[in-house]
């Protein structure tokens, strides 16, 4: 038997202050919210829709990032949860006159339940990586077809939120471009961020990352992989459902395509990937970039600048732009904007 002469213990990597303390993250969040709160004073009223888009993107991506970034379970079907949120809201409001806030509770719970069900079946039958992503995509498409073909949710027509004569906080309805929409959306984003930050520091959140990093090791150490995964998926779905409810209230209209279409799934993924997957602030940064971009494409399609007049009356430009942006980000900043900054900060 030979004596191995392995190299001595590794040169210790520099000790550094790693995980930011919760307090610091919350302070950063307060600062971001404070700056964002000034937006209505700076933006012309006609541009408010951009800010709303940013908020909706942010909520969707915060949800997606939790499950697919921190949890490593790549979802290509977050439209399912977004749509459940939007449809539960409009269905309960139109049919029974429920307040959207109550409908939000039901919608989030329903989305969480559906996510846990999907997760249970997927992991029970060991659906991994690409197959898991395809499975989530298939479920979202299934829900879209189901909504399209179900009479009691109005089939292809979907729902219009009946317009009220006056503003109402209970019914979450205000005049067009009212600043209230922005502040409510901003508050929802802040709540989603706080929930995420707290969750990541909880037992279940720590286990979520452990399972992503090494499932077998986590299992061997006594972590119930299935339970933790389903919890994370449920929370992720609930957050994305909240985005769906807010969407429905702001645009006062949902149909199967706007709620369950694959474009919504992409819009949950793109901000997180551009901003930085599995970074706390990535979804916010990504949303800040994609929101204005999405609005720009809509404007261009409606009234294209002279050199782009072949675009008149076409659609899908936004998706083309997301795709280009995703490719560029993947090539130049594979860890996303926040991820790359973090990397640089560490190496400095």
């Amino acid at each position, binding site marked *: 038997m030979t004596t*191995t002469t392995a190299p001595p213990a590794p040169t210790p990597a520099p*000790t550094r202050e790693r995980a930011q303390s919760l307090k610091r993250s919350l302070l950063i969040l307060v600062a971001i919210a404070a700056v964002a709160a000034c937006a209505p004073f700076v933006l012309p009223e006609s541009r408010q829709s951009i800010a709303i888009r940013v908020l909706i993107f942010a909520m969707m991506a915060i949800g997606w990032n939790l499950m697919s970034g921190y949890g490593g379970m790549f979802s290509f079907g977050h439209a399912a949860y977004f749509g459940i949120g939007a449809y539960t809201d409009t269905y309960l409001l139109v049919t029974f006159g429920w307040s959207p806030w109550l409908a939000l509770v039901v919608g989030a719970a329903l989305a969480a339940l559906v996510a846990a069900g999907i997760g249970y079946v997927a992991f029970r039958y060991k659906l991994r990586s690409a197959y898991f992503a395809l499975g989530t995509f298939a479920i979202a498409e299934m829900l879209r077809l189901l909504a399209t073909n179900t009479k009691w949710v109005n089939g292809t027509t979907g729902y219009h939120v009946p317009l009220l004569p006056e503003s109402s906080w209970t019914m979450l309805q205000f005049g067009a471009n009212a600043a209230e929409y922005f502040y409510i959306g901003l508050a929802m984003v802040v709540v989603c961020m706080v929930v995420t930050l707290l969750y990541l520091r909880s037992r279940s959140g720590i286990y979520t990352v*452990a399972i992503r990093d090494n499932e077998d090791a986590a299992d*061997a150490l006594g972590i119930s992989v299935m339970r933790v995964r389903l919890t994370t998926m449920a929370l992720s779905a609930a957050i994305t459902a909240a985005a769906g409810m807010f969407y429905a209230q702001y645009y006062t209209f949902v149909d199967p395509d706007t709620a369950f279409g694959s474009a919504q799934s992409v819009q949950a993924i793109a901000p997180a990937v551009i901003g930085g997957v599995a970074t706390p602030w990535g979804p916010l940064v990504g949303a800040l970039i994609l929101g204005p971009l999405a609005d720009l494409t809509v404007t261009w399609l409606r009234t294209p600048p002279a050199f782009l007049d072949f675009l008149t009356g076409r659609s899908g430009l936004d998706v083309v732009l997301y795709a280009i942006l995703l490719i560029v980000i993947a090539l130049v900043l594979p860890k996303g904007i926040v991820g790359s900054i973090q990397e640089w900060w560490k190496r400095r």
Partner: protein
Amino acid sequence: MSTSNPSGNVLEVRGVSKSFNGVHALADVDLDVPEGSIVGIIGPNGAGKTTFFNVVAGALRPDSGHVRLFGKDVTGLPPHRIAHAGMARTFQLMRPFGSMTARENVVAAALTRGGSHKDARLAADEVIDATGMAAWADATSDSLHTAALKRLELARVLAIRPRILLLDEVLAGLVPAERAPVVDLLARLREAEGLTLVFVEHIMQAVMKLSDTVVVFDRGRVIASGEPTEVVADPRVVEAYLGQELTGA
């Protein structure tokens, strides 16, 4: 099914077999591990040692046979249930939680004991000191070398405070000077806490020093077991190793 444990064995394996595509990785394996004992498992590569660990720890379901832990049948239970029943295992190929620091790895493990986050942090500090990891505990585990990862692997299982520990080659990859403290630590844990230990190891010096019983695997079977000195002198064992010198270090 009785949950009492009249035999005094922490672990009882009876008639366990496991095949992969018709190849017998384990064939009718029996093993008794008395409480507080240290059992060393040796055998040539491919003898079934790691498969044995995988079956005992719940990562693989045996084709036949039973595994009893503290007198309770745990055959086919998932790994996390077995871990909660008091048995932990390390992996031969290290499996760190790569995005976390070494310390965070250990804290994550300590949390599974169910105490508060503060308890887990304190328990992790204790284990980190005991395993001599303090100097690099705050480095991301992805950046660590083999020797450090081996120690992290050990620290992580110690943090869940198992009553029986299955160690798969935790000494391999360590230089002799690094082995001694680990061997001492294991001996101390047995003395102080009555930890039962089953370990697969190629470093014979450690096997001879630590083991009460040595079990030899060859082609999926237990071909010998007994006192360390007896076993290495056994002609069947010598043959299994094709005449390799076993007593040296």
